[in-house]
């Protein structure tokens, strides 16, 4: 049964040609969203709480190798596989912002959503992690600190979206197409990440999304992702 794609609102374009794999976005994301530091051992075990990851693939045989990077984050699917499987609506769709919400307080930790996410964008709080002094001062007051046993994932910096919406509301206008910028886009030194409103044809993000290099990740699954990747042609090595 074909489902109608809901009209996208907020979206992101990631230019894989510009991405150098420097991981500045990963760091910025973790700082912005109060992601716990789980420690070296746990990261090695595969329990890092990164909402945004760079997947690195090597092309070719040594010494003629070249790295390829793909940023992996929640695609904020219009038809998200994680939503119907949650028994308690902790993974829910926001009609207003057209993003995929994660309600930490409602999550009971079945981890079904994480299994069903083809992008593996979800991470789980396996423990209560320490935030020793003075690290507690880095916490962003606009973002909830999560406890053990709940899922979390990229929110498209929804606290920034909401702040912009409130501001626009007070000024009696619509939020501008380029008014909100996510932490990862802000930190990207090569400007590989563009964020904004896809429903505004003049915003930077919709202009970039119209590029002929654009593709949606795992488009065949019918998830209608809100992230558009621009195909990288790569560099030719040294």
């Amino acid at each position, binding site marked *: 049964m074909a489902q109608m794609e809901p009209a996208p609102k907020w979206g992101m374009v990631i230019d894989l040609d510009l991405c150098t794999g420097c991981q500045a976005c990963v760091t910025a994301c973790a700082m912005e969203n109060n992601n716990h530091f789980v420690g070296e051992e746990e990261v090695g075990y595969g329990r890092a709480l990164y909402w945004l990851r760079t997947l690195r693939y090597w092309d070719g045989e040594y010494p003629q190798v070249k790295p390829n990077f793909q940023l*992996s984050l929640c695609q904020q699917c219009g038809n998200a596989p994680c939503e119907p499987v949650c028994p*308690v609506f902790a993974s829910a769709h926001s009609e207003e912002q057209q993003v995929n919400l994660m309600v930490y307080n409602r999550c*009971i930790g*079945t*981890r079904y959503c994480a299994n069903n996410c083809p992008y593996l964008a979800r991470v789980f709080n396996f423990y209560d992690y320490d935030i020793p002094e003075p690290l507690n001062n880095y916490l962003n007051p606009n973002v909830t600190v999560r406890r053990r*046993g709940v899922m979390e994932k990229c929110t498209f910096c929804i606290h920034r979206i909401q702040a912009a919406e409130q501001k626009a509301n007070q000024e009696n206008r619509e939020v501008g197409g380029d008014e909100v910028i996510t932490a990862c886009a802000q930190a990207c030194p090569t400007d590989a990440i563009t964020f904004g409103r896809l429903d505004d044809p003049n915003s930077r993000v919709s202009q970039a999304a119209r590029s002929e290099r654009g593709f949606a990740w795992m488009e065949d699954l019918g998830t209608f992702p809100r992230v558009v990747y621009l195909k990288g042609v790569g560099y030719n090595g040294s």
Partner: protein
Amino acid sequence: MAAEAKPLPGSVVRGAEEEDLRAEHLMLDPRPREEMNQMVMEAMTKTTPAFWIAISVLGLVVLVCLFGVWIYQALTGMGVAGVRRPVFWGIYIATFVFWIGISHAGTFVSAILRVFKAEFRRPFTRAAELMTTFGLAAGALYPLIHLGRVWVFYWMVPYPNSRWLWPNFRSALVWDFLAITTYLISSTIYLYLPLIPDLAMARDHSTGLRQRIYRILALGWRGTEAEWFRLRTAITIFAFAIIPVMFSVHTIVSWDFAVGVVAMWHSTIFGPYFIIGAILSGVSAVVMILFVLRATMLHMKYFLRPEVFDSLGKLVLIFSMAWTYFFINDYLLTYYGGDAAERQVLLEHATGPGAWVWYLMLICNIVIPWLTLWNRRIRRTPWMMFIITTLINVGMFAERYTIIPMTLGHQRIPFDWGTYVPRWPEISIVLGTFALFMFLYLAMTRLIPMVPVWEVQEGHMAHQLRKVGQTEIPSITELE
């Protein structure tokens, strides 16, 4: 011994053949009702020191390995388990499916055989139904054990609350919850109904505290014609009604996986595949339990004869073949479909680091039953049947393990391929639920009559010999 036995039909004098037939079939080898009552009561009330040692060890294991470790896990976090990205479900869910599968066949054997009037079921229906109830009790713990925040598990329950927050009825986990609850309640009623006359029998043969408990549980059963009529009607209705419930439960368990977008889970064949697998492992578990009951309880060798193992062995063989059919369908059609992600999973199952689990499954579920269960002598040797059915259950556990962690570890993003090895708290909790099952079962064997005496007696009185193919079997048609 066969003093009051019905004469065998037919005018031919059978001589030695009659002796064989009567030794073979419980239905043809009657004893007086009072003697059977005494045998069952003795089996129930006599305990040996070995029994007390076993039950206290099991109780201790339940307390420490299951509840102790579970509390430790809940207080520390799910991190004590081995799950990690990308394998978010590990051995807990595999064991959950395993237990639900086990619980399946208890009622299957009892209800289907009752509906089809297979008379060899009579002495062991209760043992099988009890397995259903306790298998569910052990399995139903897992959806709670594997929760990250178990203290708010009740959010999955549809209950009215001030915020009008209901569970998500689109989620397979909610279907699961409802299906398992329905099955638990209906199979417990189905266990209880045929138990009433036996509880009344136990009430009349005991004293003191036991008698007072049985008096309450027997609901004032006197054995009048009207009571028998209603009981038979109720049992017949339940036997028919519980069959679709039973099929729905395991189909819904399979939907936990089949409704997902995960490669190799997203399969339309999972419903029947899981049901056949459940019946295979469950009927095998019935054989295992009957062997233990026969070996440890008094007088059980009279009730549980080799005919029981023989017939169940045939069932196991048939279901092993049916399971193979679905297994090949699942893999062959997926391979033929050619989806790259699914092919990767198949390749990982057969050649990856966990491939031994996959081959263990094939050996235990196909090779072993197919090579052994053709043989009538093997089928009629209880201890050999015990070994074979144990291996089949090992194979079925391996099947669930293949389907869950080994499939999750090899999905669409090659960068995130990973493996999973259970850690000690997981293994401890899994062993703990096995101990819980055995503990509850063992306790119950000394609390309720394990053989439905009235059903056996009914068989003694009402049977006829029917020719089915080359053999003659006792059957009952005029009742029920």
